[in-house]
Protein backbone atom coordinates (compact mmCIF):
# COMPACT_ATOMS: atom_id res chain seq x y z
CA UNK A 1 0.00 0.00 0.00
CA UNK A 2 1.29 3.44 -0.86
CA UNK A 3 -0.01 5.20 2.21
CA UNK A 4 -0.06 3.05 5.30
CA UNK A 5 -0.63 4.24 8.87
CA UNK A 6 3.06 4.94 9.47
CA UNK A 7 3.26 7.34 6.56
CA UNK A 8 0.08 9.22 7.51
CA UNK A 9 1.49 9.63 11.01
CA UNK A 10 4.76 10.84 9.54
CA UNK A 11 3.06 13.40 7.30
CA UNK A 12 0.94 14.73 10.18
CA UNK A 13 3.94 14.96 12.48
CA UNK A 14 5.91 16.86 9.83
CA UNK A 15 3.01 19.29 9.36
CA UNK A 16 2.79 19.86 13.13
CA UNK A 17 6.57 20.33 13.38
CA UNK A 18 6.43 22.82 10.53
CA UNK A 19 3.72 24.78 12.37
CA UNK A 20 5.81 24.80 15.58
CA UNK A 21 8.96 25.91 13.75
CA UNK A 22 7.10 28.62 11.85
CA UNK A 23 5.37 29.87 15.01
CA UNK A 24 8.60 30.08 16.99
CA UNK A 25 10.53 31.61 14.12
CA UNK A 26 7.95 34.31 13.48
CA UNK A 27 7.57 34.95 17.22
CA UNK A 28 11.34 35.34 17.79
CA UNK A 29 12.09 37.38 14.66
CA UNK A 30 8.90 39.51 14.76
CA UNK A 31 8.36 38.62 11.11
CA UNK A 32 5.28 39.72 9.26
CA UNK A 33 3.68 36.52 8.01
CA UNK A 34 0.27 34.90 7.85
CA UNK A 35 0.73 33.69 11.43
CA UNK A 36 1.31 37.20 12.83
CA UNK A 37 -2.34 37.83 13.84
CA UNK A 38 -2.44 34.46 15.62
CA UNK A 39 0.87 35.19 17.38
CA UNK A 40 -0.31 38.65 18.43
CA UNK A 41 -3.53 37.17 19.78
CA UNK A 42 -1.70 34.41 21.66
CA UNK A 43 0.91 36.63 23.34
CA UNK A 44 2.52 34.68 26.15
CA UNK A 45 0.27 31.71 25.38
CA UNK A 46 2.51 30.74 22.51
CA UNK A 47 4.72 28.64 24.80
CA UNK A 48 2.02 26.24 26.10
CA UNK A 49 0.41 26.01 22.65
CA UNK A 50 3.74 25.14 21.04
CA UNK A 51 4.37 22.54 23.73
CA UNK A 52 0.94 21.00 23.15
CA UNK A 53 1.58 20.86 19.39
CA UNK A 54 5.01 19.41 20.07
CA UNK A 55 3.60 16.70 22.36
CA UNK A 56 1.01 15.63 19.79
CA UNK A 57 3.61 15.67 17.08
CA UNK A 58 5.89 13.50 19.23
CA UNK A 59 3.03 11.07 19.80
CA UNK A 60 2.73 10.64 16.04
CA UNK A 61 6.41 10.31 15.22
CA UNK A 62 8.90 11.26 17.90
CA UNK A 63 12.11 10.83 15.92
CA UNK A 64 11.17 13.04 13.01
CA UNK A 65 9.60 15.76 15.17
CA UNK A 66 12.50 16.03 17.58
CA UNK A 67 15.13 15.91 14.86
CA UNK A 68 13.38 18.59 12.78
CA UNK A 69 12.79 20.95 15.71
CA UNK A 70 16.34 20.50 17.03
CA UNK A 71 17.84 21.07 13.59
CA UNK A 72 15.70 24.17 13.01
CA UNK A 73 16.98 25.47 16.35
CA UNK A 74 20.59 24.73 15.35
CA UNK A 75 20.27 26.34 11.90
CA UNK A 76 18.51 29.35 13.43
CA UNK A 77 21.32 29.64 15.95
CA UNK A 78 23.95 29.71 13.22
CA UNK A 79 22.59 33.02 11.89
CA UNK A 80 24.46 34.82 14.61
CA UNK A 81 27.06 32.45 15.99
CA UNK A 82 28.91 34.79 18.29
CA UNK A 83 26.08 36.09 20.44
CA UNK A 84 26.01 35.04 24.07
CA UNK A 85 22.96 33.08 25.15
CA UNK A 86 21.19 32.42 28.44
CA UNK A 87 23.51 29.56 29.46
CA UNK A 88 26.62 31.75 28.94
CA UNK A 89 27.61 29.71 25.90
CA UNK A 90 28.14 31.20 22.47
CA UNK A 91 25.69 30.41 19.67
CA UNK A 92 27.81 27.81 17.90
CA UNK A 93 28.84 26.10 21.17
CA UNK A 94 25.23 25.64 22.17
CA UNK A 95 24.35 24.41 18.68
CA UNK A 96 27.21 21.89 18.87
CA UNK A 97 26.14 20.60 22.31
CA UNK A 98 22.52 20.21 21.15
CA UNK A 99 23.65 18.45 17.96
CA UNK A 100 25.91 16.00 19.82
CA UNK A 101 23.18 15.09 22.30
CA UNK A 102 20.59 14.61 19.56
CA UNK A 103 22.99 12.46 17.50
CA UNK A 104 23.59 10.32 20.60
CA UNK A 105 19.87 9.81 21.18
CA UNK A 106 18.45 9.73 17.64
CA UNK A 107 21.26 8.44 15.45
CA UNK A 108 23.45 10.10 12.88
CA UNK A 109 21.31 9.50 9.78
CA UNK A 110 18.12 10.99 11.26
CA UNK A 111 19.88 14.16 12.39
CA UNK A 112 21.92 14.64 9.24
CA UNK A 113 18.84 14.28 6.99
CA UNK A 114 16.88 16.75 9.13
CA UNK A 115 19.80 19.17 9.13
CA UNK A 116 20.06 19.01 5.35
CA UNK A 117 16.29 19.43 4.96
CA UNK A 118 16.16 22.50 7.18
CA UNK A 119 19.22 23.94 5.42
CA UNK A 120 17.57 23.32 2.06
CA UNK A 121 14.35 24.99 3.21
CA UNK A 122 16.35 27.96 4.47
CA UNK A 123 18.21 28.27 1.15
CA UNK A 124 15.05 28.03 -0.97
CA UNK A 125 13.34 30.54 1.31
CA UNK A 126 16.28 32.91 0.87
CA UNK A 127 16.10 32.56 -2.91
CA UNK A 128 12.35 33.32 -2.84
CA UNK A 129 12.74 36.28 -0.47
CA UNK A 130 15.80 37.82 -2.17
CA UNK A 131 14.02 40.97 -3.39
CA UNK A 132 12.26 41.57 -0.09
CA UNK A 133 15.44 41.01 1.93
CA UNK A 134 17.42 43.31 -0.34
CA UNK A 135 14.78 46.01 0.25
CA UNK A 136 14.74 45.57 4.03
CA UNK A 137 18.50 44.82 4.27
CA UNK A 138 17.86 41.50 6.00
CA UNK A 139 20.29 38.64 6.55
CA UNK A 140 20.06 36.56 3.38
CA UNK A 141 22.43 33.87 2.13
CA UNK A 142 21.47 34.42 -1.51
CA UNK A 143 22.58 38.06 -1.26
CA UNK A 144 25.72 37.14 0.67
CA UNK A 145 27.00 34.32 -1.55
CA UNK A 146 25.20 34.90 -4.86
CA UNK A 147 22.06 33.42 -6.36
CA UNK A 148 23.70 30.83 -8.63
CA UNK A 149 25.80 29.43 -5.79
CA UNK A 150 22.73 29.02 -3.56
CA UNK A 151 20.68 27.39 -6.35
CA UNK A 152 23.51 24.94 -7.09
CA UNK A 153 23.92 24.16 -3.39
CA UNK A 154 20.17 23.53 -3.10
CA UNK A 155 20.34 21.13 -6.06
CA UNK A 156 23.25 19.27 -4.45
CA UNK A 157 21.32 19.07 -1.15
CA UNK A 158 18.22 17.73 -2.94
CA UNK A 159 20.27 15.01 -4.62
CA UNK A 160 22.01 14.04 -1.36
CA UNK A 161 18.59 13.88 0.35
CA UNK A 162 17.23 11.67 -2.45
CA UNK A 163 20.07 9.29 -1.71
CA UNK A 164 19.72 9.39 2.07
CA UNK A 165 15.99 9.54 2.86
CA UNK A 166 13.75 10.22 -0.09
CA UNK A 167 10.38 9.90 1.67
CA UNK A 168 11.09 12.31 4.50
CA UNK A 169 12.65 14.90 2.18
CA UNK A 170 9.74 14.69 -0.24
CA UNK A 171 7.09 15.16 2.46
CA UNK A 172 9.05 18.00 4.09
CA UNK A 173 9.44 19.86 0.81
CA UNK A 174 5.76 19.31 0.06
CA UNK A 175 4.75 20.79 3.42
CA UNK A 176 7.18 23.68 2.88
CA UNK A 177 5.68 24.45 -0.53
CA UNK A 178 2.20 24.28 1.01
CA UNK A 179 3.22 26.83 3.64
CA UNK A 180 4.79 29.06 1.02
CA UNK A 181 1.61 28.86 -1.05
CA UNK A 182 -0.58 29.77 1.94
CA UNK A 183 1.77 32.62 2.78
CA UNK A 184 1.74 33.95 -0.78
CA UNK A 185 -2.06 33.85 -0.85
CA UNK A 186 -2.69 35.31 2.59
CA UNK A 187 0.15 37.76 2.95
CA UNK A 188 -1.36 41.20 3.21
CA UNK A 189 1.94 43.02 3.19
CA UNK A 190 2.36 45.42 0.29
CA UNK A 191 4.83 44.16 -2.25
CA UNK A 192 6.64 47.46 -2.59
CA UNK A 193 10.14 45.93 -2.85
CA UNK A 194 9.51 44.73 -6.41
Amino acid sequence: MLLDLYEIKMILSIILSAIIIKLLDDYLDNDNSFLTPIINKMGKGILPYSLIFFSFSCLLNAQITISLVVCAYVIGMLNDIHRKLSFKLKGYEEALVVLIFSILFLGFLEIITSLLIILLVQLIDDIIDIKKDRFYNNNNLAIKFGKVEIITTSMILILILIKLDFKKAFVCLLVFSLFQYIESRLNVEEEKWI
Partner: protein
Amino acid sequence: MDIISYIIFFLLFFLIGFSSGRRIGYKNGFKEGRNFAPIDIRKQMLKIGKCPICDNKIED
Protein backbone atom coordinates in the same frame (compact mmCIF):
# COMPACT_ATOMS: atom_id res chain seq x y z
CA MET B 1 28.66 4.71 -8.26
CA ASP B 2 25.16 5.51 -9.48
CA ILE B 3 24.07 8.42 -11.62
CA ILE B 4 22.97 10.59 -8.68
CA SER B 5 26.47 10.52 -7.20
CA TYR B 6 27.95 11.52 -10.55
CA ILE B 7 25.53 14.47 -10.78
CA ILE B 8 26.35 15.48 -7.18
CA PHE B 9 30.07 15.51 -7.94
CA PHE B 10 29.51 17.40 -11.19
CA LEU B 11 27.46 20.07 -9.40
CA LEU B 12 30.02 20.26 -6.59
CA PHE B 13 32.88 20.91 -9.00
CA PHE B 14 30.73 23.39 -10.92
CA LEU B 15 29.94 25.20 -7.66
CA ILE B 16 33.60 25.39 -6.65
CA GLY B 17 34.67 26.63 -10.09
CA PHE B 18 31.84 29.10 -10.48
CA SER B 19 32.11 30.68 -7.04
CA SER B 20 35.91 30.96 -7.08
CA GLY B 21 35.85 32.35 -10.64
CA ARG B 22 33.22 34.90 -9.69
CA ARG B 23 35.16 36.13 -6.68
CA ILE B 24 38.44 36.35 -8.62
CA GLY B 25 36.53 38.13 -11.41
CA TYR B 26 35.13 40.71 -8.99
CA LYS B 27 38.64 41.49 -7.68
CA ASN B 28 40.18 41.77 -11.17
CA GLY B 29 37.26 43.84 -12.43
CA PHE B 30 37.56 46.24 -9.51
CA LYS B 31 41.27 46.71 -10.21
CA GLU B 32 40.69 47.28 -13.92
CA GLY B 33 37.84 49.70 -13.27
CA ARG B 34 39.96 51.70 -10.84
CA ASN B 35 42.72 52.01 -13.42
CA PHE B 36 40.29 52.91 -16.20
CA ALA B 37 38.15 55.43 -14.32
CA PRO B 38 40.58 58.44 -14.26
CA ILE B 39 41.28 58.13 -17.99
CA ASP B 40 37.58 57.86 -18.77
CA ILE B 41 36.65 60.81 -16.57
CA ARG B 42 39.38 62.93 -18.22
CA LYS B 43 38.16 61.91 -21.67
CA GLN B 44 34.59 62.86 -20.80
CA MET B 45 35.74 66.15 -19.36
CA LEU B 46 37.61 67.10 -22.53
CA LYS B 47 34.68 66.02 -24.66
CA ILE B 48 31.88 67.89 -22.89
CA GLY B 49 34.00 70.79 -21.70
CA LYS B 50 33.17 70.48 -18.00
CA CYS B 51 34.04 68.16 -15.12
CA PRO B 52 31.56 65.23 -14.91
CA ILE B 53 31.96 65.06 -11.11
CA CYS B 54 31.76 68.70 -9.95
CA ASP B 55 30.26 70.31 -13.08
CA ASN B 56 32.89 73.08 -13.19
CA LYS B 57 33.66 74.41 -16.65
CA ILE B 58 37.20 74.16 -18.05
CA GLU B 59 39.01 77.50 -17.97
CA ASP B 60 41.48 78.15 -20.75
